[in-house]
């Protein structure tokens, strides 16, 4: 080889290296970004907690032991301010919406402030009010020695260094506490996503499989069949935002039969079901085609009918492919956002129900990023959960395929 050819060869090869390197790097960069932002956030309260903050207003009727003294178990940080009379410590922090909040960093188990009862009208009225670390204090109302009601707290434009000493000095009896249990959890969306997956598969899988069987075995190879097949292929390429338009106009009257109205999980599932049909049909048909025709021949030669052959021999043999198709569909549902924004809505729900709107995990990311203050950390945390889900799904496909192949080899 001449030298020039050698160089050319090396250069071309290095291009292939670089291209792969870039692809790999982009993938890794995304993962690193998501994990670095979201990993520290992942704990039980984020995974299973409510998204919406609960505003707590509680009242205290019992007399406190005004001479009690509480000490924290560990030494405090510099910016934590402690109330030794009432057994809690507070720190000024910035929350995710870039607002100042006074966060409880420690609450003693015997703090009298744990004995509050919720005063908000409704089913929770009179129940024990939470007062624990992680909550925010907006204000405390107490009675001083002259019987007057005094209010202290963040809402009075006071820093913890200012209002805690006043509390320590003047308070005889605390009467009211206004605070907030911060939310920032994803449980609602997690549940909504599971409901969405269940309903969508419920509608799309049977229809998809039967349609695939029809196309594979029963339809005559004529113009009509070709037309049906082309339509399905075309549908597979339609952008999902168009499905959402179709969902809110065409499917809307159908869900009113189910008793729902407006944006709801059922509307979202039906829209997703339509979206998934082309993919399911195509994949199932391919899975059916991959079954050796010798099985069908043998079955028919044994005096089985067409449908018996399909359902007793062909379909069971194709089950791996069908299962993969279903899992592909589930991944699609988890990642879908455009089709769901209009049909399921963008209101994050803590207790989703089928007949009302909710957000899936992906849509929650959209909502979090689209507001006044994009909540990057929570969005990344949700991304991690999504990635783990999709990874688990893919692994499941591989494991199940391997197992059912192994069953043959056992």
């Amino acid at each position, binding site marked *: 080889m001449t030298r020039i050819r050698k160089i050319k060869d090396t250069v071309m090869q290095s291009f292939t290296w670089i291209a792969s390197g870039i692809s790999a790097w982009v993938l890794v960069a995304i993962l690193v970004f998501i994990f670095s932002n979201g990993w520290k956030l992942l704990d039980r309260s984020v995974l299973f907690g409510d998204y919406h903050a609960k505003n707590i207003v509680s009242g205290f009727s019992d007399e406190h032991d005004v001479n009690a003294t509480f000490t924290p178990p560990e030494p405090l940080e510099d910016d934590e301010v402690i109330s030794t009379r009432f057994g809690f410590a507070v720190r000024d922090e910035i929350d995710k919406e870039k607002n100042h909040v006074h966060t409880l960093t420690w609450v003693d188990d015997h703090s009298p402030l744990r004995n509050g009862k919720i005063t908000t009208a409704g089913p929770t009225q009179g129940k024990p009010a939470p007062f624990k670390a992680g909550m925010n204090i907006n204000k405390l109302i107490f009675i001083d020695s002259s019987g007057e009601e005094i209010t202290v707290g963040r809402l009075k434009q006071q820093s913890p260094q200012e209002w805690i000493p006043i509390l320590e000095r003047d308070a005889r009896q605390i009467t009211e506490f206004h605070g907030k249990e911060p939310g920032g959890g994803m449980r609602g969306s997690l549940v909504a996503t599971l409901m969405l997956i269940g309903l969508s598969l419920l509608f799309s899988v049977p229809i998809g499989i039967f349609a695939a069987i029809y196309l594979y075995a029963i339809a005559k190879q004529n113009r009509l069949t070709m037309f049906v097949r082309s339509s399905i292929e075309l549908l597979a390429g339609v952008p999902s935002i168009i499905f959402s338009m179709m969902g809110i106009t065409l499917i809307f009257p159908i869900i009113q039969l189910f008793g729902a109205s407006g944006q709801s999980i059922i509307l979202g599932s039906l829209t997703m079901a339509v979206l998934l049909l082309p993919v399911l049909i195509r994949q199932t048909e391919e899975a059916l085609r991959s079954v050796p025709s010798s099985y069908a*021949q*043998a079955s028919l030669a*044994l005096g*089985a009918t067409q449908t018996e052959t399909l359902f*007793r021999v062909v379909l*069971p043999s194709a089950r791996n492919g069908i299962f993969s198709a279903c899992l592909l569909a589930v991944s699609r549902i988890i990642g879908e956002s455009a089709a769901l924004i209009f049909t399921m809505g963008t209101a994050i729900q803590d207790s989703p129900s089928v007949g009302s709107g909710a957000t899936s995990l992906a849509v929650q990311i959209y909502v979090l990023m689209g507001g006044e203050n994009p909540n990057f950390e929570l969005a990344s945390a949700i991304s991690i959960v999504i990635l783990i889900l999709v990874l688990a799904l893919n692994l499941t496909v591989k494991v199940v395929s391997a197992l059912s192949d192994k069953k043959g080899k*056992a």
Partner: protein
Amino acid sequence: MSASKLKKIMNRAGGTKKETMASTSHSSEISQRDHIAFALEDVNLFYGDFQALRDITFDLPAHQVTAFIGPSGCGKSTLLRCFNRMNDLIDNCRIEGAIYRNGVNINSDSVDVVDLRTHVGMVFQQPNPFPKSIYDNVAYGLVCQGVRSKKVLDEAVASSLKKAALWDEVKDHLRRDATQLSGGQQQRLCIARAIALQPDVILMDEPTSALDPIATARIEDLITQLKEEYTIVIVTHSMSQAARISDKTAFFLLGDLIEFGPTDDIFQNPRDTRTEDYITGKFG
């Protein structure tokens, strides 16, 4: 008597090809005799415009092994598939003429194809057990018929496997997947599977061409045993196999039935030069 008419008469007794003649009732009547499994009359088969079988007329004997021989593409497998109407599955296949079985033309629209296939079983060239257990494979046909009783199924499975000379090897592993068996075992399983439906006829399309010599020998022995109970039609590329195990042989060439008669006659005293050329290996 013209030469053609002579030929016709000789074919009736297992002689050479005869000319087309209208004698539907005759064939029908013949097929009802005990010793005739199928009576064919002027069978022509087309794949689109291509004619694969031309004026096939002969009587297939019952309780004997009949071998179809001939070079590739001569139509022997196609004819085999006519007996259980597997050609129906091919889209542009058109058949004319009649094949009588027990007095009824199986090509007529009134015949229940699914039922026909329970009486005329088939074993394929490549062993094709279902990816199910051995038990489920053999029981498949009966289960489709609606048989639910475990006792009945157990008995049918056992007796079929015994007749197929496979029982001893698998009786303790009935739940094992059928694809685990060796090639020869799988083919015997397919035979057992067909037998389970208690057919009259077993069609075999080159059943041993994918197997090693030892497995082949076992199957050939099995075929010789089975002919007591069943009519066997076997398509084979191996003339030695045909010579070993068949009672009657039919030689096909390019869609025509050239010669049909007792195997010994065909191989030792072929009437047609083409037959002789094929047997001596000049072509095919």
